[in-house]
């Protein structure tokens, strides 16, 4: 039986992991390889790395970090952040990424998804969308959720699927950081129009939020950052809890 996936997301700047990482027993807490191994051993089903490096000079550091992770961790790796061209796809795929997540890059260049899917296959093209309610409808936002594009998110998801995206990550700006649960209404609205694997992001505050999330059949995976980094929710505990409550989940033996 296909399982629901639990995906921690790591922000990387200049090759180091940033933001709220607080692990006991991990000496080098901003080292992407240590963290990736830690999450792999805890049962993470996939890892997402967002490159939030602001300058072009920092880019090679991200590539080095990714390459180092890929030589030691053998679960799917998704890379996002600063993906604007096919060259960007090429760069991260050669360093060991399995999937590439496109967000603002697809808004600036709507053909990017089509061309990337054609060249690398749909399985490696992830459409990541930042969405917020505006006047009763779902609007697509750009630049990390700062700019309202005015584009209807439902239409955007549909056209992404038609252009060959293989998976959708839906980040709800409305629930992000609130820690009061995922945005089920928004997820259902997108799940109703596309039949691609759907990853929910934004709003996870506790284990129960994931159980509620997976009550939606259209959702395949839950993505979160801070609650995993702070260890408020441990991935292993979360997976045991979900498994006990009847959610199909991959349990790995603890090392």
């Amino acid at each position, binding site marked *: 039986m296909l399982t629901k996936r639990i995906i921690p997301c790591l922000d990387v700047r200049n090759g180091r992991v940033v933001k709220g990482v607080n692990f006991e027993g991990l000496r080098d807490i901003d080292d992407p390889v240590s963290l990736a191994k830690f999450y792999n051993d805890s049962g993470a089903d996939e890892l997402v790395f967002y490159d939030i490096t602001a300058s072009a000079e920092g880019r090679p550091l991200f590539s080095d970090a990714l390459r180092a992770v*890929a030589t030691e961790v053998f*679960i799917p790796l998704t890379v996002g952040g600063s993906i604007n061209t096919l060259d960007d796809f090429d760069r991260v795929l*050669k360093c060991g990424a399995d999937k590439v997540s496109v967000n603002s890059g697809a808004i600036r260049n709507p053909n990017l998804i089509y061309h990337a899917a054609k060249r690398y296959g749909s399985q490696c093209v992830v459409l990541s969308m930042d969405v917020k309610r505006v006047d009763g409808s779902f609007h697509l936002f750009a630049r990390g959720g700062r700019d309202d594009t005015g584009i209807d998110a439902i239409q955007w998801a549909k056209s992404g699927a038609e252009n060959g995206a293989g998976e959708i990550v839906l980040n709800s700006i409305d629930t992000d950081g609130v820690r009061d649960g995922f945005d089920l209404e928004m997820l259902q609205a997108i799940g109703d129009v596309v*039949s691609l*694997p759907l990853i929910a992001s934004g709003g996870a505050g506790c284990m129960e939020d994931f159980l509620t999330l997976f009550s939606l059949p259209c959702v395949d995976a839950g993505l979160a950052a801070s609650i995993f980094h702070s260890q408020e929710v441990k991935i292993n505990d979360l997976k045991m809890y979900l498994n006990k409550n009847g959610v199909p989940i*991959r349990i*790995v033996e603890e090392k």
Partner: protein
Amino acid sequence: MIAVVDYGVGNLYSLTCSLRHIGADCIVTNDEQMLRDADRIILPGVGAFDDAANKLRSLKMDQLLSELVIKKGKPLMGICLGMQLLFEQSLEFGVHQGLGFIGGTIRPLSDALTNQAKVPHMGWNSLAFVKANDPLLQETKEGDFVYYVHSYYATDCESSLVATSNYCGVQVPGVVRHANVCGTQFHPEKSGEIGLRMLHVFAAEKD
């Protein structure tokens, strides 16, 4: 030495990393002599069947693999699309000939699934054993999870089934074998510890 066939299809970085991680010597190549010299061969691949099959033929890899694997008995493992290419034919956008090392046809998952089920079949799925004594399953338990990403699957291959996964009621061939030719529909190089064990078994298999 394991030769990973390089025919311009897919990203081989993870595969070579995982082989090196388990201590296997490997080389990514399409050089005839290197393939002849290798102890065993891995045929990787992602993307479209027709495109990949044409690339293999244009490099004359079909003939070379047939000689080395079928006539001379060199162990071969196909992964994902590489596994599908081992079969006789695929119905992915038309009818296309494969290598024909294993009997059976590759068909769209969507033909077998109800409308609610998503394609691709993407994520971690558990293995049910058909032939538990197969060498590839030596270090794997029934119910272990492996990582799949695919939209087509092998059919009419009952005699070659080693392990399957259930996707929305469809028995997806996960591991197949005919003599020295084996294949996995899932990605062992992305299936964590379980996948590494399987690659390790293949790398260490007695001829």
